[in-house]
């Protein structure tokens, strides 16, 4: 068995506002192996994005153990790449400069790597284009390339394809799987799309709201490349859906106050 890249034990997160205390995450336990592809799915408000921000080091006010490669997470670092829901490119920089970010393109090594990544995300010919000239899917591919340039051990994706149309989304999923197979980067992918979760993940983490906690973790034992139309995929999807519906029933009975 390969090394555990990410270890989360008894993670609790409480948001305090002047009026109330909201338990965002309760007793989260999760272990992610090096090179594993994990998808996290759950209804909105289940704390899946909060969990991802904590792993990214963007939110450091939590209780419990969150370790990446044996190191407690205390802030952002280059080992942890983060893809936001929106591409968040710098509008004043061209595609290649956006990917390079704080690194200089004058350095032939950086330049070479940037262009290699542009090929990987299939954006050849757009090196000098500005973000306003890109479609949503293209812009999100730039942001993925930007994260990959830093050679992260783990890539955290917060509903990255949520704003894209169905065709572009399935294309992007294939691009991402291709990257994962090439680079062997550990992936944690948050989504609210059941199909996406089953299509991408080796394990699907199902979360439940109020307070946010992990309901179950289901392994998806289907080999890549997966076919959505295959019987095995449909069956797997149904299993996850069943689990998911149990979550929804529970959350409706618990959250009867609405």
């Amino acid at each position, binding site marked *: 068995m390969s090394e555990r890249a990410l270890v989360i034990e008894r993670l609790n997160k409480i948001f305090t506002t002047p009026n109330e205390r909201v338990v965002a995450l309760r007793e989260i336990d999760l272990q992610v192996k090096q090179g594993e592809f994990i998808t996290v799915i759950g209804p909105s408000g289940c704390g899946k994005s909060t969990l991802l921000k904590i792993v*990214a080091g*963007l939110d450091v006010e939590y209780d419990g153990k969150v370790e990446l490669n044996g190191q407690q997470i205390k802030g*952002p*670092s*280059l080992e*942890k*790449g*983060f893809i*936001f829901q*929106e591409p*968040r490119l*710098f*509008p*004043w*920089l061209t595609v290649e400069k956006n990917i390079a*970010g*704080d690194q200089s393109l004058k350095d032939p090594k950086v330049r070479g790597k940037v262009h290699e990544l542009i090929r990987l995300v299939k954006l050849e*010919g*757009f090196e*000098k*284009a*500005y*973000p*306003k*000239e*890109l*479609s949503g899917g*293209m812009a999100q591919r730039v942001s993925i390339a*930007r994260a990959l340039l*830093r050679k992260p051990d783990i890539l955290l994706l917060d509903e990255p394809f949520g704003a894209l149309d169905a065709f*572009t989304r399935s*294309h992007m999923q294939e691009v991402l799987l291709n990257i994962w197979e090439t680079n062997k980067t550990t992936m944690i992918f948050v989504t609210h799309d059941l199909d996406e979760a089953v299509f991408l993940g080796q394990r699907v983490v199902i979360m439940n709201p109020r307070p946010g906690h992990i309901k179950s973790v289901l392994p998806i034992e289907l080999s890549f490349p997966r076919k959505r139309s295959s019987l095995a995929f449909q069956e797997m999807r149904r299993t996850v859906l069943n689990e998911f519906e149990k979550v929804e029933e529970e959350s409706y009975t618990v959250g009867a106050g609405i």
Partner: protein
Amino acid sequence: MVSTIEKNIQVATHKRQPLISRVQLRKIMLGAILPVGLLVIWEFAGRQSYLNPLLLPMPSEIYHEFIYLLQHGGLLGHLQVSTGRALTGFLVGGGLGLLAGILVGFSYKSEKMLDPSIQMLRMLPHLAIAPLFILWFGFGETSKLLLIAKGSFFPLYVNTFLGIRSMDRKLFEVANVLQFNKWNLVTKLIIPSALPNIFLGIRLSLGVAWLGLVVAEMMGSTTGIGFLINDARAMAMISTVFVGIIIFAVLGKLSDSLVLFIERKCLRWQQNFRGG
């Protein structure tokens, strides 16, 4: 399907345009309709003796006066002096305004400390301050320069400050994830995002510099376009007054267009509504 769209975009990004395209020519003509039409009516009214030539000389007379001043009245010399004053004042005042805007924009403490006082100074009118400058520094160049600098300080200050403070938090988060150091944070994120506002500040500051120049030159000077106007007014040489006024208008517009041109070059990445 996707690839053809991408190719089209690619073609669009790499297409180069001639220096003045047909569209631009049409735009220039659109802008010229109003002033040219006005000139024609004005000239016509003058020739029909509807206008009192002592108060409103015809455009052709103003033109002849302009040529005369150019050849015998040392107009170019006055022009040079005025432009020099406006530019120096703008550079001093605008430069300080930019620096102060950056300082106050970056630091909450310096905002609380400096901004109230600066806002108070901003409200002081030129004409209230001018006598003080003259008392302190005499009628020489220093008081004129200070007056112009005082005017051009504030627009750049206010807009630089605003530009820095209106930075997108989401992009700041990206820079945090990518571990930008302080220097890159400033040069790659904060300055570029403040640039549209800074350019607006430059344009407003330049405009105010020209306004300050007139006040400064009319108050006591023996050179410059402002002096030319004031002197001609005293002698009731109405055509000369008009030449001076038109020169101010043209110079102001030219300097504004120059900044706008540079702005367009620097802010090519922006996508804004350009009017329907």
